């Protein structure tokens, strides 16, 4: 017998978690002498009340959807891929290489090829930890986190020594050719008398992220591969009984996971910066873990959780801009949300389960 109805598990638990995180954040803001209500107002105003605010929120959301899906695929196979960050960095390298060295006639073709490149580079970066896990039993958490450092070092080397244009001071590639420029929301939706999304970085890759959500759902719940990935995730011994190869599933799931992480780079590198810079990922790989946890590894949940974190990122930036609340405190608030929705999930879930059981017993 299930302990709680599905809607409570999917909606109520994360909602209460967010509420608790918000209350604690409010106390922190109060403690440094600012008004939590004003702060909330400012965040909502800055992130959601203007179209340019939305343009930033959705830009961050795009990143978090990709990394959230990345973590979720691995979750379904009962693996903890902490390497989204590194896989996204290397994915960015793939994007930069094709954008810089292939002369594209149109952005749409550039996007297709860059998507493939980002996915392949990200997937290959995940392949090594996956192989080590499948064949040698090296724990994927350890290897993927180590591979983040290696990725950063590789990127550093490539940017400083290989791809940096002559004479440039910062470790970044040259700006990509104009033909690879992706349409931003401003270019897509703004009209002469209605200047929407002005100056904001959201671009066409957002729709790619939404498409990835749909594809993810079909993959996990409608294909034989998804069936096998989930089966393996629930019980390795049962998977073996059914003739599902643990080695194959471990590697395939991690390839998909790494590929999704790599695709995040399309948004940051091709869509926004239009060149590859150091630290283009800005920790989105790690936020993906919280997004996947909060979204229950389901694409709808991941989309909503990514939206929430997009709001927190953009709202946080606004706070730092307009108040005396220091930038670090924004990180504290984000960390609190991650803590409550991810790590302390059971703290909310267990009392809630008890309440549901009690009411059910009274009624039944």
């Amino acid at each position, binding site marked *: *017998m299930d302990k709680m109805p599905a809607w409570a598990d999917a909606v109520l638990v994360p909602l209460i978690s967010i509420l608790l995180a918000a209350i604690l954040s409010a106390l922190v803001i109060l403690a440094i002498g600012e008004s939590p209500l004003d702060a909330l107002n400012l965040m909502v105003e800055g992130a959601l009340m203007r179209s340019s605010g939305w343009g930033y929120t959705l830009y961050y959301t795009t990143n978090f959807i990709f990394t959230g899906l990345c973590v979720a695929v691995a979750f379904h196979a009962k693996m903890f891929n902490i390497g989204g960050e590194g896989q996204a960095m290397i994915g960015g390298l793939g994007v930069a290489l094709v954008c810089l060295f292939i002369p594209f006639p149109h952005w749409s073709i550039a996007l297709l090829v860059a998507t493939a490149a980002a996915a392949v580079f990200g997937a290959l970066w995940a392949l090594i930890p996956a192989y080590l896990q499948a064949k040698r039993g090296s724990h994927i958490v350890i290897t993927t986190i180590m591979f983040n450092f290696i990725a950063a070092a590789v990127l550093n080397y490539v940017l400083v020594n290989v791809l940096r244009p002559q004479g440039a001071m910062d470790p970044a590639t040259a700006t990509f050719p104009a033909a690879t420029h992706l349409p931003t929301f401003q270019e897509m939706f703004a009209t002469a008398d209605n200047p929407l999304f002005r100056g904001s970085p959201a671009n066409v890759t957002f729709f790619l992220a939404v498409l990835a959500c749909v594809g993810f759902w079909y993959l996990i719940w409608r*294909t034989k591969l998804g*069936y096998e990935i989930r*089966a393996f995730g629930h019980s390795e011994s049962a998977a073996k*009984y*059914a*003739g*599902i*190869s643990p080695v194959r599933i471990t590697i395939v799931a991690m390839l998909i996971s790494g590929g999704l992480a790599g695709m995040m780079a399309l948004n940051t590198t091709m869509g926004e910066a239009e060149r590859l810079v150091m630290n283009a990922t800005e920790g989105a790989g790690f936020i993906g873990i919280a997004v996947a946890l909060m979204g229950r590894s389901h694409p709808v949940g991941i989309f909503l959780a990514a939206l929430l974190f997009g709001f927190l990122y953009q709202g946080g930036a606004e706070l730092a801009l307009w108040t005396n609340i220091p930038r670090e405190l924004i990180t504290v608030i984000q960390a609190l949300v991650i803590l409550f929705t991810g790590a302390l999930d059971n703290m909310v879930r267990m009392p809630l389960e008890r309440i549901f059981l009690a009411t059910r017993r009274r009624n039944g």
Partner: protein
Amino acid sequence: MTDPIAPAIELKGISKAFGPVQANKDISIRVMPGTIHGIIGENGAGKSTLMSILYGFYKADAGEVWINGRKTEIPDSQAAIAAGIGMVFQHFKLVQNFTVLENVILGAEDGPMLGTSLARARGELRALAEEYELSVDPDQLIENLSVGHQQRVEILKALYRKADILILDEPTGVLTPAEADHLFRILDNLRAEGKTIVLITHKLREIMEITDTVSVMRRGEMTATVKTAETSPEQLAELMVGRKVLLRVDKVPARPGDAVLRVENLRHVDSHGVERLKGISLEVRAGEILGIAGVAGNGQSELLEVLGGYADATGTVRVNGKEIALSGPGSDGGARRACGIAHVPEDRQTEGLIMAYTAWENTVFGYHRDPRYQSGVLMNNALIREEAQDKMTRYDVRPPNPQLAARNFSGGNQQKIVLAREIERDPDILLIGQPTRGVDIGAIEFIHQEIVRLRDKGKAILLVSVELDEIFSLSDRIAVMFDGRIMGERLPDETDQTELGLLMAGVTGDPSGDPIKAVEASLEDKAAREAASHD
């Protein structure tokens, strides 16, 4: 009270609920001192919960516990020990790399230094051994002891703690018949000395053999308490299930055809480097059931794993005359299914089913790559669901709701889902391990009938079971496994429990002299060999 002697244990109106499940409902029971009291019931009837309350693991929601005529609170196991209650669990709680003596004093040391405790325990153990036929070498490591001896250590632990009341939870599940007989002699001696024993079991035979009184539990309730001498197995079964039960399997003699499965010199080494199958040869013909008897852990599981395609092996296996791969590509579960081998694994919860999957998803588990279930790149879930509904109705799975997760079905209904999936594929060979473990009596009847029905359709069936009764009632031929070898084959009509019991303990040839001694000798021999192979 009409009885002048106070009962050793008296439970009054014990109730315990886990969430919406009422595990114990207003249970009252009186166990008189110096008797063996059996508690019998199907899996999930609430026997273990009741005993856990008595031993202080759970707190009852309502009710009172009286020990020797005094109301006693038992908040934890320390209190239970203080009240003179000892418990022998189904899964032993022993430290494998400690000696017998160290295990006995563990938690009951006299002081910070072990010397005095060990000396005292040694003396007491010697006395206990003489008194109750409970001899164990006190300096032997647990890991070198046979299962029967390990159980004796558990009993010794309880007696060392001055237990007057001994609770045994399914004590014979892991024993050979000879070991079980010895255990019953020990219990007899204990009873003669005035100890009170509560025996939890689901085996009717044991209840009839040793108990004075028996209480029957069903769905959390105590349905009856009767004097063993005044009841019969049929009556007890009816009380357990709530309706008349067929204890014998109805079947006509087998008409075996050609050998469908032929196994020669099968060897398998596990991941620790221990050889688990040491040259198995057997054949199963069409239209017959070959039963593999044996004490758990003698290679039966590995035999099923190898034949089912998820453990590597050497040797030859022929299916319908064609040799199949035993390692590398073409040896996985998919390949086995393709050549007509279906497998109902021993453990449906960790192998046969994905507990989190819905029933309909589970009805194609292992066959999900069948092109029939695909439509383009996607799976044809509508078809799978439709067929699942049909299978569940025909195999009487209750509730017949394909949307329910597998974990929400009872053990018997889970087994029916697995059985439906495997039998409906119309295999040539069915491997079936512990078909009725953890299954209620009502479903056992159904499952046995299905297996016999499949045999009568001319299929070859390899049955592995640790329940000798099941082996006897289903098999057309019986092979006995011990220590990775087949000790011999018998026809069920020409053998008996004693002979099979000896084979199961590794004793072949004429058991002249004391058969118990022979069994023990061979078990110790096996333990020594295993210890050697670990080094």
